[in-house]
């Protein structure tokens, strides 16, 4: 089943009408049909332009959550020559919501870590909808430290609605697992790049996001709270999520303006799910150039700049 987003329904309808006309044309070509097709093609192009040129933040959130959107392991296959998955936090278990391992990007050895969602019930049981447990964050840190030891740059792919809010997660200190990563990532002496490929859900996203470069796909979002959560608290109802999405400034263009991200990777018209190969090619070249910028820097300079980058975040005024 192909997932059709609410705001795309008029487009889907127009495309179906066009196909119907083309079927008619194949059976019996008349000048009337030819004209109708030309007319509809024009209208469709306009409608597409109108729909996709001015996506609202809430529409982008829906695209970011689209089940046909490429996930971390899709990119592992499409952007990298090889991915060798490594497992486990060495204490409790292996978190399948946070795969990680060696990968080769354009001939360069790297450590690839990220959150992975599932597309159906079975996959989501395995991947926990991309919501990692403490084990996931601790595995991620283990792999980052190994990358530092062996001189590999780190690439983190962020795609999570948030860290898992469960009983076991609290018992095993999910808060500390994230906090410890925030602290330790500031000290990892190797180039680090993160890219928000879908959902950048709060602390669960940031827990692998303290990196030298922060890249975002055009329709991904990155937020302190989900639009639904924000709406439930401030508007007293989840149905105000579209307004909350607008207010939170969670879209890539807004975050670029706020200075939170360094680069936006363009997506195909309508979102990454329309063309996995095209978006993977764009992402690959963004990753390659980010690493090319960072690799020449010495580790002291790298750490100093990473500190300054995150140190600068915040807006306030200061009186005498």
């Amino acid at each position, binding site marked *: 089943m192909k997932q059709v987003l609410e705001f795309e329904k008029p487009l889907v309808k127009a495309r179906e009408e066009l196909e119907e006309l083309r079927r008619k044309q194949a059976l019996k070509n008349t000048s009337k049909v030819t004209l109708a097709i030309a007319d509809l093609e024009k209208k469709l192009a306009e409608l597409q332009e109108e729909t996709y040129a001015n996506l609202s933040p809430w529409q982008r959130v829906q695209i970011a959550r689209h089940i046909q959107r490429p996930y971390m392991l899709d990119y592992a296959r499409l952007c990298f020559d090889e991915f060798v998955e490594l497992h486990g936090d060495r204490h409790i278990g292996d978190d399948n919501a946070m795969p990680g391992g060696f990968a080769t990007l354009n001939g360069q050895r790297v450590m690839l870590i990220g959150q992975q969602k599932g597309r159906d019930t079975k996959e989501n049981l395995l991947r926990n909808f991309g919501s990692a447990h403490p084990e996931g964050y601790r595995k991620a840190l283990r792999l980052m430290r190994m990358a530092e030891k062996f001189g590999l740059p780190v690439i983190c792919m962020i795609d999570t609605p948030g860290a898992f*809010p469960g*009983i076991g997660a*609290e018992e095993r200190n999910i808060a500390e697992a994230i*906090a410890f990563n*925030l602290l330790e990532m500031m000290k990892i002496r190797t180039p680090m790049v993160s890219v928000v490929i879908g959902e950048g859900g709060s602390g669960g996203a940031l827990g692998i996001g303290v990196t030298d470069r922060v890249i975002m796909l055009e329709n991904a979002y990155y*937020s*302190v*709270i989900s639009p639904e959560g924000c709406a439930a608290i401030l508007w007293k109802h989840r149905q105000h999520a579209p307004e909350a999405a607008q207010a939170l400034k969670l879209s890539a263009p807004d975050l670029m303006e706020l200075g939170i991200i360094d680069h936006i990777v363009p997506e195909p018209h309508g979102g990454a799910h329309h063309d996995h190969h095209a978006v993977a090619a764009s992402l690959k070249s963004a990753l390659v150039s980010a690493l090319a910028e960072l690799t020449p820097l010495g580790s002291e300079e790298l750490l100093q700049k990473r500190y300054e980058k995150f140190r600068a975040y*915040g807006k306030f005024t200061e009186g*005498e």
Partner: protein
Amino acid sequence: MGLFSKRSVSDLGEKKKDMPEGLWVKCPSCGESLYESALAKNLRVCTQCGHHFTMSSGERIAALVDEGTFEEIDANLDSVNALGFKDYLAKVKAYQVKTGLKEAVVTGRARIDGTPVVLAIMDFRFLGASMGSVVGEKITRAIETATREKCSVIIFSASGGARMHEGILSLMQMAKTCGALARHGEAKLPYISVLTHPTTGGVTASFATVGDLILAEPKCMIGFAGPRVVKETTHSDLPPGFQTAEFMMEHGLVDMIIQRPVMRETLAKLLKYVQQEKKAA
């Protein structure tokens, strides 16, 4: 001059005097009616059952530091409405009037039993002590001050989490504060985190849980996700005492649970173990 710059501890306690005399407070734990002034004198701990009431930052400072040693720093930071969030600054203003505070954290230098420390005290009465840019900046500067002056930093946390009115900027305060702690830690300087009721969300998932030493006040609520969210997500009943200081202790996540009346002497004792010996000048 800001609201709190370099005010002495006795000034900070002044607000109490404004309260009407003879006010009774009902203890939410045992139901006992308590005389307000007796409660204040007992550090806001119920004289009957030991329940720890919410304490203002001023009261806490007065209860912790050597008399006359508290010197507030970075008192003049003001929140701005960076995202253009509806009614945000009006809300901040309302809490300023209500609490007499400028923001949700007070920071400064002090001595505890003679040991110099930098303190950061979050005040839950101010917008749930949520962390926005000002709170994050003040805590970061407090940590950096401690790093520069080679002393311990003690943070008393209480927070509903990151302040959503400042969106992603609030989230980034988590990384910023932890970054400052990374440097403080690399200088082998001690960080004591004290968790008070309630400490949740983005504060729990940043500086509050990475102390060299983590203390908690009895029965205080400590968690990452709110209990309602956990219940709804997992569709299961929460274990008794879930997300309390005692739950944290049982799972090995805090060093000690400390009653408020002995907090000061406990901190003094711990500081003497972790504070680096001063080299002869």
